[in-house]
């Protein structure tokens, strides 16, 4: 413990007056009871993460209820991306990374050297901040997760493309040009294509890391509607630093500040009746 406190990041200079230095937040996270009553898909258990000597997550503990939209909210640099990328072990690509604690998907740990990471990632689709369609046709982009599984059956692939593109509200727009390059689509279409790709293999959880931050308001609205649709079939974890967005799309909101979970509860409660002072400060714009 002693070493850990020494490695804390320095308090940012020139921050707003009510901002607290991370070491001043010592109280454990406030978790509303509603969440605990729901069956959990993912459980994060006292999870900490270090980039080299620098700690980015501090004892985060939260559970993700099934078929809900969970928003991860917080000022930029607070560790939202770090947390969501830990869920599907995408952080493995970063050298000198160290973690403690555990994350469980349906009760099985996803941390540890002997976990089948590739299989784990297949159970979770992911959408990124910057849309990243692959340099291939629209069709091939959508079936990519199936192709890498060696599925070549044309009927299955065709079905998947139509289902995924319909779910991503893109089918009508691209059904006549499936064989064209995906890079010719507009930014919003590309992002919806990435969502189609993320759900093509029927994942258990869909992870979204600020999926709208590079889009214009109309494209953003479309994607937000889409997320509400997806919720009927999938569990969605969405990172955002946009409070309106969190309130529009999510059932539960978790607030992270300086790598610590502050408060986690139903979205309406977080914004209207926050139990923690930090949450109240944040939603009133006095933080970040």
């Amino acid at each position, binding site marked *: 413990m002693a070493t850990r406190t020494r490695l804390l990041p320095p308090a940012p200079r020139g921050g707003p007056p009510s901002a607290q230095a991370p070491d001043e937040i010592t109280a454990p996270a406030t978790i509303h009871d509603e969440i605990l009553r729901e069956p959990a898909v993912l459980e994060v258990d006292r999870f900490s993460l270090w980039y080299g000597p620098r700690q980015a997550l501090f004892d985060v503990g939260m559970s993700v209820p099934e078929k809900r939209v969970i928003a991860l909210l917080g000022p930029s640099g607070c560790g939202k991306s770090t947390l969501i990328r830990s869920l*599907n072990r*995408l952080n493995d*690509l970063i050298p000198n990374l160290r973690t403690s604690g555990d994350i469980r998907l349906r009760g099985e740990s996803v941390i540890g050297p002997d976990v089948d990471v*590739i*299989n*784990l*990632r*297949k159970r*979770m*689709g*992911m959408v*990124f901040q*910057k849309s*990243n369609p*692959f*340099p*291939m046709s629209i069709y091939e982009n959508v079936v*990519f*997760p199936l*192709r*890498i*599984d060696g599925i070549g059956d044309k009927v299955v692939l065709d079905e998947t493309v139509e289902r995924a593109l319909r779910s991503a509200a893109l089918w009508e727009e691209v059904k006549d040009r499936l064989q*064209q*390059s995906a*890079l*010719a689509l*507009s*930014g919003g279409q590309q992002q919806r294509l*990435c969502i189609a*790709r*993320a759900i093509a*293999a029927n994942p258990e959880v869909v*992870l979204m890391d600020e999926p709208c931050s590079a889009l214009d308001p109309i494209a953003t609205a479309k994607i937000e509607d889409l997320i509400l649709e997806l919720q009927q079939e999938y569990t969605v974890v969405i990172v955002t630093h946009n*409070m*309106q967005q969190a*309130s*529009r*799309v999510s059932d539960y909101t978790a607030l992270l500040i300086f790598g610590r979970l502050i408060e986690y509860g139903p*979205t*309406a409660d*977080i*914004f*209207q009746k926050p139990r923690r002072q930090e949450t109240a400060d944040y*939603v*009133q*714009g*006095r933080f970040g």
Partner: protein
Amino acid sequence: MEAARVTPVEAAQRAVASAVAPAAPASGAGAQPPHRRGRRTALAAAGEPLVWLLGAGQVLAVLMIAGLLGLIFYQGFRTFWPRPLVQMQVRTAPDAPPQRYLGEVVRHESYRLTGTAPDGAVPAAERRSLLRVGNYDFYGDDFRWIPELGVVAELRPADAVTIERLEWGPFFGFVREYRVDGRTVATGEAAWRRFQAEHGGARGQWARARRMLKHDLGRVNRKLEEDRLALRRVELAHGRDSAEYADAVRESAAGSARLQEEYRRIQSQAEALRQEAERTSLVVAEVGGREKELKSAEIVRAFQPNALGFTGKLGVYFSRWWEFLSAEPREANTEGGVLPAIFGTVAMTLIMALLVTPFGVIAALYLREYARQGWLVSVVRIAVNNLAGVPSIVFGVFGLGFFCYVIGASMDQLFFAEKLPNPTFGTGGLMWASLTLALLTVPVVIVATEEALAAVPRSLREGAFACGASKWQVIRRVVLPKALPGIMTGVVLAMARGAGEVAPLMITGVVKLAPELPLDGEFPFLHLNRSFMHLGFHIYDVGFQSRNAEAGKPMVFTTTLLLICVVLLLNISVIAVRTRLKRKYESGYF
């Protein structure tokens, strides 16, 4: 539920608005620095002198390249234009009879006699012309300097002929007689007309005879050689005293008798054809009056340049270009065509590209994607980059020592034992030259591929990993397609570098005159063991190794022009492929 989602934020927004509002006037008011009118940004601050410098550097570079290309294009395209024949009357001493010379004026120059006159005066500059007088068989030299002071008369006789022939270089002179079977059938103007009418036929017959000697006899020869090798194989396998060997000897004796018979038959046919072609001849005289009889069949081209109109000259010009591009060289490479050299250059460059691309891409993939980035990889990277600075002849020596003498010799031992001691792969050849050049250019491909791989956005890789792809799947399906245009750029650069390289080829398989093309109708069609000709080496050979450097000079420019065009065409074809790939993948973000 939707309504409930909107309300909480509205409260927050109101709070934000009220918090920001009072602060707003503070930033707007206050002492802004007075706007300084009339004071312009310092020249150095605007960076303009630097821009001029950069611009000047750019212009200089472009001018140098344009100048070089301009020279090559001007000289290269001029070579084949027929030049007028000038007859000069020259008096060397006041009372001596004038000497007559006939030839093409190559250039003029000023010269000054060295030393000083007894009275200390520096001799005045004099002008002289270089005349290509040809007729090497008479004069023993193709060129002559004519001092302009001594020229008493300069004529352009309309009946002067330029004759390009198979031996002795060009002949400049006048037509006297036309002979058939040694009997004179026409003289003067009539002889010239008759020759022109019948020349094509004689050339055709002669070419047929030559093809027979070369291809049909060559085929019989190869069969004889195969029989000999088969016999030798039996000998190696069973020994000289075995029954099998005795059988094989009997068989081969019968076979070779048949082949010898065929050989004689073809030879006599070709001989008959040749004699038919050589029945006609042209008697010509040089400007001094000495006569010579030239067989029609041995005359490649003859024309009267001073009587030729523009279209006639154009005809000669294109016929010369066609010969250059489609024929084999003659006269120690200074005349005739360069088809084998074009073929060798293209084949070598393409094989090299086929070899270097997988080499370079695999090496770069390992360096960038798989190796742990540490000091060892850095050292390897530096070493690879410095490989490009090793003199190319060193690669040639390595290619000769390792590929030809180690790998090639072992291959001979294993697969071509019956041909020994004649080497098959154990000597320079197309394969080894291409491999040597692949080694030489592999750094170019590695560096370009590494850059292309590094330029693949991280978001793409992460997206593929997040779909559950393995590392190899990410590379194979996402990273490589994205990096492909960059890799192709590297291949283009490597090809440009490799096609212009000469030194390492000289010891790994290029020859002055290759008897056979590496590609023919014989199995296995592409003969990677054969030595070949190369335009780059041809330039060196014609320009600096021939009997007469002055005669080879125009050919140097023309061959250089051709080499540039060949490299350009090769590059354009690769670039076209790259553009297609790019268009397939990148129809542009927006």
